[in-house]
């Protein structure tokens, strides 16, 4: 089918890809080995810095009691709810802003201020308003993900090619038709990249919320660990959090690949 040169080219590309992957894994393993060695030779205080072995044994203990899955599930559950709500409300509000330029002009400074405001500052108020429970956590995560979702989707809406809108109008399309046949499908790509930001933002918000007020969840695990000075638990929590974040991100990436072909 192809020339030999082409096969060589493909082979070279695959080899490059392999080297990248290999180096990535190698660095990770090297990091853990180095860390463990430093701990073994007492060059770092494991009471403060923990060690890979202690971290993994903490995780195994959590696994044995079954607590591990409860904590992961609570965090994932809270993240998914605020992600879903953030995406839905973000799309809805962005649509309203696009539909009514007057509202978007009025809302502009408020959105800018809300966007730059560190949402964690609202934490104490949220706890008083929503109570010390899951509602506060979701509200916190929603605040963090919603504003950026609105801004991104709205930007994508108003950046639609003016000539295409002109074309729609020359075909006598009404506003709803312009939205549903042009503006929305045209923004799908940006919408999906917003989802990627949104899932990370939701997780940040949930952990922040769990730090402030919670009885379970990965954020609770980390916070509790630091309060009782069990650094093994803190490091184990962070490690699990990394895994959860990565898995959720790759899920969105997978959905993106399915949707955009």
């Amino acid at each position, binding site marked *: 089918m192809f020339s030999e040169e082409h096969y060589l080219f493909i082979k070279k590309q695959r080899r490059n890809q392999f080297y990248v992957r290999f180096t990535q894994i190698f660095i990770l393993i090297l990091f853990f080995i180095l860390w463990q060695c430093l701990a073994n030779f007492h060059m770092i205080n494991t009471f403060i810095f923990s060690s890979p072995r202690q971290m993994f044994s903490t995780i195994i203990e959590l696994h044995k009691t079954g607590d591990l899955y409860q904590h992961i599930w609570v965090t994932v559950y809270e993240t998914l709810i605020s992600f879903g709500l953030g995406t839905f409300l973000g799309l809805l509000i962005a649509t309203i802003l696009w539909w009514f330029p007057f509202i978007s002009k009025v809302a502009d400074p408020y959105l800018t201020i809300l966007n730059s405001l560190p949402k964690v500052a609202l934490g104490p108020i949220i706890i008083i308003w929503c109570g010390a429970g899951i509602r506060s956590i979701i509200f916190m995560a929603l605040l963090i993900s919603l504003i950026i979702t609105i801004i991104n989707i709205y930007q994508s809406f108003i950046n639609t090619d003016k000539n295409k809108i002109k074309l729609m109008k020359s075909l006598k399309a009404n506003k709803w*038709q312009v939205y549903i*046949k042009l503006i929305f499908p045209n923004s799908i790509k940006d919408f999906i990249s917003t989802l990627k930001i949104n899932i990370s933002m939701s997780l940040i918000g949930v952990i922040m919320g769990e730090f402030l007020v919670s009885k379970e969840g990965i954020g609770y695990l980390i916070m509790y660990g630091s309060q009782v000075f069990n650094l093994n638990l803190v490091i184990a929590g962070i490690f699990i959090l990394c895994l959860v974040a990565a898995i959720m991100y790759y899920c969105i990436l997978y959905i993106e690949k399915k949707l955009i072909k």
Partner: protein
Amino acid sequence: MTSSLQLSFQSMNNILEIKSLRKSYHTKDSEILAVEDFSYSLSDGEFIAIVGPSGCGKSTILSILCGLEKKSGGEITIKDNYKIGYMLQQDSLFPFRTILDNCLLGLEINHELTKEKKKKVIDLLSTYGLKDFINSYPDELSGGMRQRVALIRTLATNPDILLLDEPFSALDYQSRLAVSDDVYRIIKQEKKSAIIVTHDLAEAISLASKVIVLSERPSKIKKVFDIKLSNRSTPIENRKAKEFSEYYDAIWKEIDFHV
């Protein structure tokens, strides 16, 4: 009112009457008169061109005729049941729709999408050399092909008068000649009337039977040229006619070009 209407349609062949059309634009600190006084009667099957210095308001006239912009004064009368189709400089094909779906856009919007009409669009695409691309996406097509698709999208709603706003200026020179030949053939075969706005004098002379020269802004009709070529055929062939360069020179002299 009645008498003026009767007057304007004294010639039954006229399908579009424009009478002292005026348009001004408003900005914060000025008012710009773009079109001052434009009148023309378009008869059935006629193909005319509007040329003029850049920024003289040529495109504005088409935008108003098509209903995209409001006129500031004057009268526009379109013969009953006659429809207007608009073709722009950019093909504006939607990248997320196939070629066929792009062409069906107008029918969808006007809730006129029937099986027969869909078949007609497919026939149009096949007739004009796009049969193999019906289910392709716009990014797989060349600029010239995309512009042909844009024309068929305009034709799909079956308009009687086509407004062409610099339809070829985004193309390179060779595809421009070829596509203008195609577009001319399609418009003549489908028996449409057309108004083309262009800054390319050769294009105007080779396509149209009348060339209207506009003055600088505020634009008024400066002169109307009847293009009579000894053996009129396709636009590319027309460029070889012996009168061609005479018209070119005459029109060139009328246009206020500033360097």
